[in-house]
């Protein structure tokens, strides 16, 4: 359906996107993951025709969109990371405005607005000003605007940032339902690895302008098939305990957060006893030690050397 071929984008001396290749098949949910500054938003801007690449091509049903973006735009919905809505208009007025500029006839627009309001669950609030909405409601309307013209393909750039868990679940379920019921093709970027795990059929991981890994969930996790993740919870995190762990020759990767630390070590090693020894030597009181198969987060950490939310 859509493919990006060797995309490059350079701003002055900075290479924001450097040789990105990706494709999206009809009906898929594809995840595009990467830390801040990885080049995700620039890539989305290019493949949604808002930004010209320095080189490379983007093809939608085999037609290049670089000089003729109209066909793609007709079938594309974009949910930007920001709340791109008029705060001083009501939900209905926002939908009507965007319906008009999508050139929907009055009858079609009226039907589509009802449908969209139902999908995003804002029927009761349709005549309220957007500025009175909660963060979650704004996010839902942000998605609703992108659905008005029945797109075949939709780009969602971190659509759940900064909202409560309930709204987040609602949005994730909506995305899943749109894909399942309307065969909507979705490119989804997120900081939340569990969202990608829940939604995506395939995943691209970006870092420093490059795609550094791609495949379905199992293929990605297979990158760490020879390793295991050990999650250690402690009473108080001692610097010496952390440093000793970091310096241990078997530790491939370490990620500490407050009172827990997760380390990636080879699967064949029994690391349990080693942890107890290190804790005793450094006077650290252990609360729990869990050995888990690697998650996508671990893979990400392994590939980029940093957490998704760094």
């Amino acid at each position, binding site marked *: 359906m859509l493919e990006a071929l060797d995309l490059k984008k350079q701003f002055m001396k900075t290479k924001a996107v450097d040789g990105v290749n990706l494709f999206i098949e009809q009906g898929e949910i594809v995840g595009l993951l990467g830390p801040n500054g990885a080049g995700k*938003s620039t890539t989305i801007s290019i493949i949604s*025709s*808002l930004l010209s690449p320095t080189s490379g091509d983007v093809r939608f049903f085999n037609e290049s969109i670089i000089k003729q973006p109209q066909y793609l735009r007709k079938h594309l919905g974009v949910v930007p*990371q*920001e709340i791109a809505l008029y705060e*001083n*208009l009501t939900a209905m007025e926002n939908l009507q405005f965007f319906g008009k500029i999508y050139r929907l006839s009055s009858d079609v627009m009226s039907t589509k607005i009802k449908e969209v309001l139902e999908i995003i669950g804002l029927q009761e609030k349709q005549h309220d000003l957007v500025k009175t909405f909660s963060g979650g409601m704004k996010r839902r309307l942000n998605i609703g605007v992108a659905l008005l013209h029945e797109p075949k393909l939709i780009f969602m750039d971190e659509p759940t940032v900064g909202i409560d868990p309930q709204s987040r679940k609602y949005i994730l379920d909506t995305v899943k339902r749109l894909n399942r019921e309307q065969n909507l093709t979705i490119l989804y970027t997120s900081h939340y690895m569990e969202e990608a795990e829940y939604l995506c059929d395939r995943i691209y991981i970006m870092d420093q302008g490059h795609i550094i890994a791609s495949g379905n969930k199992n293929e990605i996790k297979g990158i760490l098939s020879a390793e295991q993740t050990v999650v250690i919870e402690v009473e108080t995190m001692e610097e010496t305990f952390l440093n000793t762990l970091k310096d241990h020759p078997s530790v491939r990767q370490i990620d500490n957060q407050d009172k827990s630390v997760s380390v990636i070590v080879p699967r064949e090693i029994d690391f349990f006893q080693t942890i107890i020894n290190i804790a005793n030597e450094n006077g650290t009181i252990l609360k729990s030690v869990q050995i888990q198969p690697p998650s996508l987060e671990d893979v990400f950490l392994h590939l980029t050397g940093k957490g998704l939310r760094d």
Partner: protein
Amino acid sequence: MLFAFMKKQLLLMIRDRTNFTLLLVMPIILVFIINFAIGDLMTEDTPEIDAKVAIVEHTSEESQLNQIKEEINEMSIPEDARNDMVQGITEFQPIQILKQDVLGGPKHQEMVDVKEIGVEEMNTAKVNKQYAAIIEVPENFSYRLVKSIFLGEGEPPELSLYVNQEEELAGQVIEDLLVAYQEQLQTSTILEQNGLGELRITSQDVKGETVAISGMNPITNTTYYVVGMSVMFVLYIASTMGAYAYEEKRDHLFNRILIANVSRWVYFLSIFISSSFTGFIQLMILFSVSVTIFDVTLPNFPSFLATSILLSFSVGGIASLLTSINYRLNSDQASAIFGSAIVTLFAFFGGSFFPIGGDVINTLGKLTPNGSGLTAFLSAFQGYGMEDISGYLFYLGGLTLVTLVMAVVIFPKRGKAV
């Protein structure tokens, strides 16, 4: 689609309480305050003029005309032509016309008090400053004038005018009337000599610059400040629209609009049209309220309407330019500076606060859209027609064109990230 943009802009503006107050309520309040504050200092009507004018004739006009008639009767020309000339001279009495029709005519008799004085009194009158102006009719004025016009002999003579500097306004009025009268004499002379018309001068043909005397409606200070405030506050539409447009870029709404397959130039056009339309609506509301509350009258509606439309277009042009600069700089500084500083400067030079004197400042003021609009509106309120204000209308149209061209050149040709 443009209608959708206009509707959206109007809704945003109406719901933006701060701007709504600034754009519609503030000018009305300011007119109230200014009116109240200076109401006692300025009268509602034009200043009363009581111009005492003395006319000094060195020779009696009647004797001069009789003399020329005798000379013509002795000329060896066909009798018909002779009779025509004598008849024409009998009807043509330039000083009589000046005294009775121009200065003493029904339009001016309440303001001008004409008195004939002898040559010997003239010097005393000058020293004592008894009169606002003294018109000295030189020796054989009518005789020489008739000879010049009818027989083509010699240059037409000129009247002399002494103006009392202590009665500047009255003196100015008389001077304007006299200049207009002499110009009319010259025009009539040329027409007569070239057989293009009858030699006839009436007070209808002579108009001075002073409004009350020229027969146009006077401008009250209320009308002045209604217009002054309206042309000033309409400029805030440009800064507001420029700021709104930048918010659309900042909040990624512009990208969302582009993704909907709307050309950036359609968007750009929507800024121009929405701003022009909103400016026009604002002017209509302000003037409607003023007509209702302040009893402002509007004698020439076409001139008023044309000025409103052209001024609104120039506001649209400025809004487009500010939008382009904001987009180019990726900041709303251009709108902010325009709204906070440039509008005030324009208002000052354009005469929104008080009429500006001095040729240079006055010219500068008329180069501002509000200054140009103010002059055109005031003319419309005085009753002047389209032909009288066409210069200002063309200027506003030109200004619109220039700002639009600049805006198109500056507007970024490619959008940034989503």
